[in-house]
């Protein structure tokens, strides 16, 4: 510092003032908040990303895959049904051929008709089998197929032998014997062929029914599975969205009540809601900054009100100094040393008094960030009353401070709470008629974890119809340019942030009582919970000490 000071004392005072304004408490508080915000930001982004987008797309993709699977299975099954149908036709045709053959065979033996038709039919059957050898092989297996073919061959051979026998034109017992022998074999073989065919038909019919049943089951089961899957998917997706929305609505409520702690991760992954949380955290910071500005600007308004009192009060020591200096100037020679010394001492003392009058106000006016510490509420209120003392003197009102002995400390920000009580006291002064008094009473609250400060005036009271609006922003009963309508609103914000509340009761013509309850310092952790459980109605019991 290269500034030149009039005296070493002044330089020292300035230096002291500099260290008082120094970084320690307020900057530390601000750093802590910024660090908390940054930590929350980092923690929110540190998690693996699993977006809603991804979940929705993934779900639909799985559904698509599943439906694709069902379709393929149904198509394959349909194809197999088609094949079976065709094969069944084939087998039917075969059975018809064999049937025909057997009929011709029977006719030959009964009525001696020609064998040509039977041979033709058996060849057609054989041809049929040969043409579709591959398919039949698949269904019957190689062994079955060769057995059928072998049977046909045997049957064909027998027919041929019979035909040859006919052509040779043999007659007699020998012929009859051979014919009977062949007939027997033919019948047996024919029967076998037929039963093989029928067997095949039966088997094919069964597998056809199976295949159709199969496709029915595929349809039914896949529908059931799809239903379950869709239900579960909808549940998880819905729960994920709804739960988060609920969480955010809680955050919004919390923020509205003045709790500006940043949102920290609640899940193991991040998604679109994380962007929302980041936006919320940004908003919280902005709100906090704005609230600080609002509180500070309101404080400056209170300072403005107090300045009038200070300016007037300052006239007294100034007058004393002027008179003393004047007298020294005029009667210097006629005064003795003792008198001169006494008068100079007066000047010094009155200067100190002036400084004190101003310094209280300056202490209060100085901008500082929120810092919580255990506070003696009685001392705090005494200081607040001192701060307003000039104003009180100016208005001709008496102020009485009463407190229960041995009250516990409360947890709070001294500057902000002074601002709240100053605002309430200045309001009480405005409401009080000249010559009346204001009572400030500090007692334990009904809730053992709280202290209550009652500020009682005996003014005109607040009409019932506006009692509920007095905490609303921009609501004022004072004349234009006299009140901003923010005092009680800002005060309630500050007290709310401390985990307390302000209530009011008033009777028209009899005065008003404002009660501020604040949590005592032993339970800082419960502050948040306690505020949540308390509602914000403007109600109040009987005034007066309750200790």
């Amino acid at each position, binding site marked *: 510092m290269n500034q030149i000071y009039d005296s070493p004392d002044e330089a020292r005072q300035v230096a002291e003032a500099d260290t008082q304004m120094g970084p320690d408490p307020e900057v530390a508080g601000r750093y802590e908040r910024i660090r908390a915000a940054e930590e929350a930001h980092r923690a929110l982004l540190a998690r693996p990303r699993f977006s809603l987008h991804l979940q929705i797309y993934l779900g639909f993709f799985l559904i698509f895959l599943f439906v694709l699977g069902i379709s393929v299975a149904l198509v394959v099954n349909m194809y197999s049904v088609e094949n079976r149908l065709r094969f069944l036709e084939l087998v039917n045709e075969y059975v018809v051929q064999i049937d025909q053959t057997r009929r011709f065979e029977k006719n030959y033996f009964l009525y001696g008709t020609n064998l040509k038709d039977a041979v033709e039919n058996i060849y057609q059957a054989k041809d049929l089998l040969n043409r579709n050898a591959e398919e039949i092989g698949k269904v019957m297996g190689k062994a079955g197929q060769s057995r059928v073919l072998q049977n046909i061959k045997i049957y064909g051979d027998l027919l041929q032998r019979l035909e040859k026998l006919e052509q040779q034109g043999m007659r007699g017992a020998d012929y009859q014997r051979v014919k009977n022998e062949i007939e027997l074999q033919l019948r047996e073989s024919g029967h076998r062929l037929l039963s093989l065919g029928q067997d095949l038909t039966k088997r094919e019919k069964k597998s056809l029914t199976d295949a159709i049943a199969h496709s029915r089951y595929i349809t039914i089961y896949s529908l059931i599975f799809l239903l379950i899957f869709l239900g579960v998917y909808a549940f998880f997706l819905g729960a994920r969205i709804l739960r988060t929305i609920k969480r955010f609505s809680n955050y919004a409520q919390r923020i509205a009540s003045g709790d500006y702690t940043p949102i920290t991760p609640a899940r193991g992954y991040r998604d679109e809601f994380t962007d929302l949380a980041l936006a919320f955290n940004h908003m919280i910071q902005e709100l906090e900054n704005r609230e600080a500005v609002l509180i500070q600007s309101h404080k400056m308004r209170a300072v403005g009100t107090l300045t009038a009192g200070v300016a007037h009060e300052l006239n*007294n020591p100034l*007058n004393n*100094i002027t*008179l*003393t200096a004047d*007298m020294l100037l005029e009667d210097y020679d006629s005064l003795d040393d003792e008198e001169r010394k006494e008068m100079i001492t*007066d000047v010094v003392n009155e200067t100190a008094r002036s400084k004190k009058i101003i310094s209280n106000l300056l202490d209060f006016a100085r901008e500082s960030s929120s810092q919580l510490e255990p506070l003696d509420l009685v001392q705090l209120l005494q200081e607040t009353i001192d701060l307003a003392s000039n104003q009180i003197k100016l208005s001709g009102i008496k102020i009485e401070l009463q407190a229960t002995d041995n009250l516990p400390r409360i947890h709070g920000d001294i500057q902000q709470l002074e601002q709240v009580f100053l605002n309430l006291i200045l309001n009480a002064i405005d409401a009080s008629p000249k010559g009346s008094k204001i009572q400030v009473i500090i007692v334990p609250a009904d809730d053992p974890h709280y202290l209550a400060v009652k500020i009682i005036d005996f003014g005109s009271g607040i009409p019932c119809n506006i009692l509920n609006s007095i905490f609303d922003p921009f609501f004022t009963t004072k004349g234009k340019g006299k009140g901003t309508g923010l005092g009680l609103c800002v005060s309630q914000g500050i007290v709310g942030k401390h985990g307390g509340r302000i209530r009011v009761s008033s009777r028209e013509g009899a005065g008003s009582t404002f009660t501020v309850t604040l949590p005592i310092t032993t339970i800082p952790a419960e502050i948040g919970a306690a505020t949540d459980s308390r509602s914000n109605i403007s109600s109040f019991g009987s005034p007066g000490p309750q200790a």
Partner: protein
Amino acid sequence: MKETTVCILDDEPIVGDRLKPELEDDGYSVEVFTDSASALNRLDETCFDVFITDLKMEGVDGMGFLEKVKEKCPDSEVIVITGYGTLESAREALIKGAYDFITKPFRIGEIRAAVKKAKKRAKRNIA
């Protein structure tokens, strides 16, 4: 000629301490009070020619004292001195019969001149 009597009432003791010797130098008989109660007691006994009173005080304030003086000693003149000088209080004081209204801080000369003028007026009142 009878000595002119001056009563100074101000809860700031230095005011009386400084004004008393200066006014005595000018030939007045001066009594100083720092609370309105004892000044009122003295008022019951005697009327001073000139009263100098502060406005803001515990108990009966300057305005009340002014009323009492004007009630009891209508010929006396009252000079009101105050640090809380506003147009309203000045008007009120003058309406209630104050002779002068001087705002703090003032010079000793101002009080001297005011007392001198007030004395003349008070004497005239009596005559």
